[in-house]
């Protein structure tokens, strides 16, 4: 099941926990992958671990010109971009009353605006091919909100509305656009939480544990597969029951 042989996938934030797991899952299903991120060393290491069918295309998503160039670089490396996974994200947490314009703008720029630009950049090829898969990695906090994350929650909620609008526009061309919304996943991002914060979060998760990056990757793999061709505009929540929505 879920054979991606011959498909080319661009994964942003591939140097992170979830992005790396997504790239591995797509690659294991037969896809060629372009690994994007700001840090080249972990990307190179991942590409080496994967062996063939893996390319490294670094880009700083806070830089608009670099974002514009990324789909072209990925298409040059692989021949096309059939699958785009917008996974890269940053946090600049702060209480609302203390949040600076800069903290707000940075998070919106990297988490939302760069995803818009990358979607726009890959559409031409997908429209011509009459096939495409876009998976945007959202977050549970885009739906539930989270104190200290007004900027992050706004960006992640924004991804959902953006994805649905784009899904409408391109559904007739064989292109699907969906979101995967992780709950609390064991990554470097959640590793910053202290034990007390983690303990408090765990009491709110019916599954009684944090999720793994592989469990997010599996959801992305499904949405990227030919089998999910009739699923579009959806948000797949993967959160251990933390929010049943």
């Amino acid at each position, binding site marked *: 099941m879920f054979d991606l042989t011959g498909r080319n996938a661009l994964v942003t934030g591939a140097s992170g926990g979830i992005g790396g797991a997504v790239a591995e899952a797509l690659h294991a299903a037969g896809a060629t992958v372009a690994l994007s991120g700001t840090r080249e060393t972990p990307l190179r290491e991942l590409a080496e671990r994967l062996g063939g069918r893996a390319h490294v295309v670094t880009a700083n998503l806070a830089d608009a010109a670099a974002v514009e160039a990324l789909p072209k670089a990925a298409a040059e490396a692989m021949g096309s971009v059939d699958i785009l996974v917008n996974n890269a994200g940053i946090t600049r947490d702060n209480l609302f009353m203390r949040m600076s314009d800069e903290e707000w703008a940075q998070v919106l720029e990297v988490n939302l605006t760069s995803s818009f630009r990358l979607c726009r950049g890959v559409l*031409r090829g997908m429209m011509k091919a009459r096939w495409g898969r876009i998976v945007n990695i959202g977050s549970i906090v885009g739906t539930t909100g989270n104190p200290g994350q007004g900027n992050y929650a706004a960006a992640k909620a924004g991804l959902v509305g953006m994805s649905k609008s784009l899904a409408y*526009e*391109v559904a*007739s061309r064989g292109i699907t656009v969906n979101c995967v919304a992780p709950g609390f996943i064991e990554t470097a991002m959640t590793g910053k939480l202290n034990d007390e914060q983690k303990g408090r979060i765990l009491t709110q998760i019916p599954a009684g544990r944090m999720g793994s990056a592989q469990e997010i990757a599996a959801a992305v793999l499904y949405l990227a597969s030919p089998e999910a061709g009739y699923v579009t505009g959806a948000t797949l929540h993967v959160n251990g029951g933390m929010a049943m929505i």
Partner: protein
Amino acid sequence: MSDIADRVKKIVVEHLGVDEEKVTETASFIDDLGADSLDTVELVMAFEEEFGIEIPDDAAETIQTFGDAVKFIQGAV
């Protein structure tokens, strides 16, 4: 009919699946040939590739009919 017009017509016929006779000088892609807004974007993309030209968005908006397309492309190549 000029070579350019023939090539434009071929793209329109193939892309919109319409009869060649319907693609007249004044035929509007949307009103007469059944295109939706996304079809018009795809047509412009196809013209760009066929003729190796760039059609900026503001110019693309003025291309409403088959005649508009031929005229624009004749001026651009």
